[in-house]
């Protein structure tokens, strides 16, 4: 959608003609969408929880690194399963204790959400930036640049993504540290971000290429060119403000995908490893026979929280798209 497309009459409430920017119109439409607002609050809650995890853990009194199987062995039976029913839920341990090492599930989940969301947010930022630079460059400059970038996109799309992630994780890690040494956490984080970024930007890049290709032919770009604006200025001042919509919509679709992909990697054992808390790694703990044969309470905490997060984020994505582009029917 382009600025010029918005006629003032498109605002249904505007009985007295009031000038509203497309951003204001979008905000108005979004506020009326109850599903969207609720899911926005849920998503916001998750981000707040992630952000404030250390504070919440401090107030609550436990931390995700204490091995309660060693500290308080009376809470566990000989196999390492919490003695109390329902995964050891009590006033002291709100979500119970993890079978095996006996970490506190509540703080582990908080920190897991924090780490997973942090990584996914970084991946989203990196992919969006790359998508903007390469997509807009391909679309606006055209010619040889366009050909080159489009072929790169075609090529990268042919790579089996998940397989590439797990295959390249050890290689990327080995770039930083020798395989004989212990891998520091930040190296794993950097590796996780970079492999997902490498294969994550193409869809957005392709969309932005198409959009800026169409924009290039518009009169206002031509007018800017005639009045002597350099290409850098045209891209910054004329093209970029008009591609904000697809960027926002795509980003809200991309982020949950990155969250589940990152969790999948940790689930397979190539992402973050213990004792660093991680959402996906909790699933791999839940998939052990110790949990599945005894008390399955533990697996619901990461499972249900992730479903809520993904559903809320997908609904939010739909609402953002509807608010920006009311013409497309669902």
């Amino acid at each position, binding site marked *: 959608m382009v600025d010029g497309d918005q006629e003032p009459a498109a605002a249904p409430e505007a009985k007295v003609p009031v000038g509203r920017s497309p951003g204001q119109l979008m905000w108005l439409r979004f506020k009326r969408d109850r599903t969207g607002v609720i899911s926005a609050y849920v998503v916001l809650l998750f981000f707040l929880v992630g952000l404030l995890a250390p504070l919440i853990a401090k107030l609550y009194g436990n931390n995700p690194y204490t091995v309660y199987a060693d500290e308080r062995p009376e809470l566990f039976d000989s196999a390492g399963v919490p003695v109390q029913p329902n995964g050891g839920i009590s006033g002291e341990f709100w979500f119970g204790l993890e079978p095996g090492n006996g970490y506190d599930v509540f703080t582990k989940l908080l920190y897991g959400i924090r780490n997973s969301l942090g990584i996914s947010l970084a991946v989203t930022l990196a992919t969006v930036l790359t998508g903007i630079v390469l997509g807009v460059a391909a679309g606006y400059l055209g010619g040889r640049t366009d050909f080159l970038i489009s072929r790169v996109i075609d090529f990268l799309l*042919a*790579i089996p993504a*998940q*397989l590439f992630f797990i295959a390249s994780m050890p290689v990327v890690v080995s770039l930083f540290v020798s395989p004989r040494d212990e891998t520091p956490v930040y190296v794993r984080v950097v590796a996780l971000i970079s492999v997902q970024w490498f294969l994550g930007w193409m869809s957005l890049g392709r969309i932005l290429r198409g959009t800026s290709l169409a924009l290039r032919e518009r009169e206002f770009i031509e007018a800017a060119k005639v009045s002597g604006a350099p290409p850098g200025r045209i891209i910054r001042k004329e093209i970029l403000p008009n591609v904000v919509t697809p960027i926002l919509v795509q980003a809200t679709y991309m982020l949950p995908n990155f969250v589940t992909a990152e969790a999948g990697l940790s689930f397979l054992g190539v992402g973050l490893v213990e004792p660093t808390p991680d959402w996906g790694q909790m699933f791999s703990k839940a998939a052990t026979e110790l949990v599945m044969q005894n008390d399955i309470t533990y697996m619901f905490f990461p499972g249900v929280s992730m*479903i809520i997060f993904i559903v809320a984020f997908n609904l939010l994505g739909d609402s953002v798209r509807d608010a920006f582009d009311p013409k497309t029917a669902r």
Partner: protein
Amino acid sequence: MLRFLLRRTLGSLVILVLLTVVAFLLFFGMPRDPALLMCGKTCTPDALANIHRTLGIDKSIPEQFWIFLQGLVAGRDDFAQGPCPAPCFGYSYHTNEQVWSTLMDRLPLTVSLALGATVVFLFVGLGTGMLAAWRRGTLIDKSFTAGSMVLSSMQIYFLGPLALAVLVYQTHLFDEPRYTELTKDPVAWFTGLMIPWVVLSTIFAAQYTRMARSSMIEQLQEEHIRTARAKGMSRRYVFFRYAWRGSLIPIVTILGIDLSSMLGGAIITEYTFGLPGLGHLAVESVQFSDLPLLLGVMLFAAAVILLCNIVVDACYAFIDPRVRLS
């Protein structure tokens, strides 16, 4: 049409060759010493020297790559383990078996898993999606739409262990999933893969429900549908004969992507249920830093994806006469 397919095949071959270059560089060119990566944490100098020799690491990277390419096309017999007929991906460092024969060993399981799940999720997904479109706006439609929203947000690494825990470990209703060859014992093949099929297809089916519904609704608003209804054709006939066919294109596109990614190894599903297919092989080879095997799985999966893309393009021509004409 033939020319189009030929061009697509050639383009895919170019991409495959490029991918071989990139994957080879990634695994053998980028690490400072791939042998060290391969050797793992408990590496003796003896083992290291052995890997150095078998890798041919004394040669330059382009030379190594050229030898690898030659092996792919013509086979090699310079391995200590024995001859290696084309397509030769070398020998695994962990099991000392030929990579290609290992891949072929694991393939039947992955194909069984993918095809079985596809049958289930196409049946369930398209069925519910079309029912929702047929009864648009009713309670059925709304509950299917909401249900598919939640189910599509499910993850295999949650649903899989949950199904295992409830159905196998807690209630003992089913045996643990395991793979038996179809030709050996069809009943065991079916019962062993039932839970993985259902879990895998639950996640995919939800997507097809949404897809089939929206695509059907879109088709029903087309003008040729209105014309057909106006000249007196029944709603049912128009729905199943006209709209249904038009709604297939986006579904086939997504199906091609899903099928190809599953045939390249449904990694998380196979890992969750402990089924030794291609995806499981990939995880194993990462755990043992088995680079030749990893390279083999990756190139094989990429080839499958490219092949599926060509098949999907060919399918368009059968579904949509307009594609055939142009």
